[in-house]
């Protein structure tokens, strides 16, 4: 990338300027942009592993009965699919990749507040992910508890639960440190003149996310430690035969793991909030409402955890309380959707790949959110609890929501990251395949779920065959779309990207693509009358 030096005197962050060259220069770099990219590569690798496991499950379920492997292998595969996808892909996901890459650029900072801590949390992430993966191959076979490690089974099973649990613990620690770093960054390093309510909305969503990371993750940390202690020392907190209470485990687990859903989805919403006004050529509608709704989702979302436990045997009072709270959290989510749609109204829309994926996000997120309400309602929940309906619901949120927002974000910031454009036509084709494949894969699950197909089952009754087969072919389309996307992004160098290919109005579009190491030659400022999106 030396040719850019003629145009910009400062070398880009992709050029090694330090002591080391090549791979070592990346692995020792505390530059937030490089760390963001390293997260992205790691996450894509783990995502690919998760996808392969997913395809293996769909292959097994193509016909009723055993096809290619046995029930114990199936239990191991859905467990590790969950662990990888949740803990190593979607929880760090957008915050670790695009939070790291874009947050300092968008608020006009040179880096995050603690750059070395940032690199440290990346290594913790790699370590945790390695331990979680290793749990597959060490000890008495892969864990078969599901990613939720429900007690008392997780205490009794002979499989390698401890390694997987410890991996999740380390990953949680990494997540905490990233969140901590972002909060301090946003409090201390905003550009002069940029008050909190002049901050772009992606940083706002990261702010809410970071607080959940800091305040919720420790609870699952201690819970996972308790599981390890139960297995090694027989402390018995969750073991009824020693006087413990398994439902207490579910409480503790979901006190984190439900807010974790908001760790995943809030940054996704933030990305969509940046993309839609850019491509609709309009000012975002309801800036403050969107900013505050992020905080509202984070704070109300902290208190809805027990809606995962309606059938666990907890008290009736708790059930209606948590059902009520669950319905409340839909309000700020809907506020965001209304604002996105209103932003597009009468806009001069240019349909580029990031925008397509943003539209896909809204569509899939709506389906996921609405079905979430039917799961949050007590009566309907009892009917579809632990069926494929739940599987379809959370894939619509976690994959349709977070995944599509992730793809949208890659297509949006790719020119800034690499200083190159990609093939727009190919990118559009990847959307067609991903979107069609996604719906074909998961929509049938809603239907067979309502018909009574339980989740996490190796075998099923013949009437569900057609649904499972549709899902399989949807999965194949999805994989094709993913491969097209990888080819589009990484196969060959595209044309040189301009500084501001999309007409974005935040700081990062006003500096060279790719940005120089120090981000800004002249530190940006916001004038008294300038808003968050007046910078162009």
């Amino acid at each position, binding site marked *: 990338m030396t040719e850019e030096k003629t145009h910009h005197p400062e070398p880009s962050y992709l050029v090694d300027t330090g002591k080391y060259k090549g791979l070592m220069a990346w692995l020792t770099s505390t530059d937030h942009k490089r760390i963001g990219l390293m997260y992205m590569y790691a996450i894509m690798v783990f995502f690919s592993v998760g996808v392969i496991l997913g395809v293996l499950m769909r292959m097994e379920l193509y016909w009723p009965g055993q096809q290619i492997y046995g029930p114990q292998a199936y239990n191991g595969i859905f467990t590790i699919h969950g662990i990888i996808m949740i803990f190593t892909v979607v929880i760090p996901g957008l915050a670790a990749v695009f939070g790291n890459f874009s947050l300092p650029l968008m608020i006009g900072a*040179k880096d995050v*507040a*603690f750059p070395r*801590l940032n690199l440290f949390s990346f290594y913790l992430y790699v370590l945790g992910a390695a331990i979680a993966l290793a749990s597959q191959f060490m000890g008495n076979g892969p864990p078969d508890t599901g990613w939720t490690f429900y007690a008392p089974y997780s205490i009794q099973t002979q499989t390698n639960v401890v390694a997987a649990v410890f991996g999740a613990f380390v990953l949680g620690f990494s997540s*905490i440190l990233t*969140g*901590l*770093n972002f*909060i*301090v960054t946003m*409090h*201390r*390093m905003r550009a002069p003149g940029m008050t909190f309510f002049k901050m772009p909305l992606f940083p706002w969503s990261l702010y809410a996310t970071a607080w959940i990371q*800091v*305040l*919720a*993750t*420790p*609870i699952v*940390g*201690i*819970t996972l*430690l*308790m599981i390890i*202690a139960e297995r090694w*020392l*027989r*402390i*018995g*907190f969750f073991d009824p035969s*020693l*006087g*413990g*209470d398994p439902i*207490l485990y579910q*409480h*503790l687990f979901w*006190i984190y793991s439900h807010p974790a859903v908001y760790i995943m989805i809030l940054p996704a919403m933030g990305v969509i909030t940046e993309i839609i006004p850019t491509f609709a050529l309009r000012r975002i509608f309801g800036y403050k409402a969107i900013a505050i709704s992020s905080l509202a989702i984070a704070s109300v979302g902290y208190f809805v955890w027990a809606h995962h436990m309606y059938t666990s045997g907890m008290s009736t009072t708790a059930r209606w309380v948590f059902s009520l709270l669950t319905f409340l959290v839909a309000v700020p989510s809907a506020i965001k959707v209304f604002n996105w749609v209103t932003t597009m109204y009468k806009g001069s829309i240019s349909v580029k790949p990031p925008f397509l994926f943003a539209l896909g996000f809204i569509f899939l997120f709506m389906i996921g959110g609405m079905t979430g309400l039917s799961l949050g309602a007590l009566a309907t929940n009892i009917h579809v609890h632990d069926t494929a309906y739940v599987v379809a619901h959370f894939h619509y949120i976690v994959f349709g929501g977070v995944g599509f927002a992730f793809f949208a974000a890659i297509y949006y910031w790719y020119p800034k990251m690499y200083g190159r454009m990609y093939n727009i036509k190919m990118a559009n084709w990847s959307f067609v395949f991903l979107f069609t494949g996604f719906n074909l894969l998961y929509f049938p699950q809603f239907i067979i779920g309502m018909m009574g197909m339980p989740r996490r089952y190796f075998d099923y009754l013949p009437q569900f065959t057609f649904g499972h087969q549709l899902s399989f072919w949807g999965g194949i389309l999805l994989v094709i779309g993913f491969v097209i996307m990888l080819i589009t992004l990484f196969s060959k160098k595209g044309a040189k990207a301009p500084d501001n290919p999309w007409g974005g109005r935040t700081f990062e579009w006003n500096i060279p693509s790719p940005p120089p190491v120090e981000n800004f030659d002249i530190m940006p400022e916001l004038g008294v009358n300038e808003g968050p999106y007046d910078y162009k």
Partner: protein
Amino acid sequence: MEHRDDIGAKLGMWLFIFTEILLFGGLFLVYAIMRSSYPDEFHQAAHHLNAFIGTINTVVLLLSSATVAMSITAIQKGNKKLAVILLFITLLCAAAFMVNKYFEWGHKIHIGLYPGSDLMVTLSHGQVMFFSLYYFMTGLHMFHLVVGGIILTIVMIKVKKGTINADRYVLLENGGLYWHLVDLIWIFLFPLLYLIT
């Protein structure tokens, strides 16, 4: 690093302290549920705990907290020697706490009161829960005490070397904050475990 932000560093430390508070918070939640399920057994089991050692350790920790706080005053006034001495006293207190704990745990393990022991199986469910909580909570607290001790040792060396001085001492402040957190947790552990007889 040319850029320096002491308030930012302290903010980061506070956020970390919040995570620690919630980490123990999860345990205190388990304690609350278990205690409300087995109130009488908790009372009986607590008789096995030595409230005297517990009180001594409380005093030791409070004293160590005060000396850390004073060492910050000392460094602010430029009195390096006093700061090192006060930090050293803090570390001595930490060591004293550990020695006490060693005897306390050692005695219990000696008579067979530990999770998974043969004696434990014969106890009632509530008592098992109490001792499990006792070992888990004080054990995790002790782990934090050791970590805090290591941090303060590093801080003390840096004070001695002069890298922590009257102009830049945020590391000492942050180390102190962590140490006070260890104290804070003990303030709740002590009455909840030792004083419910």
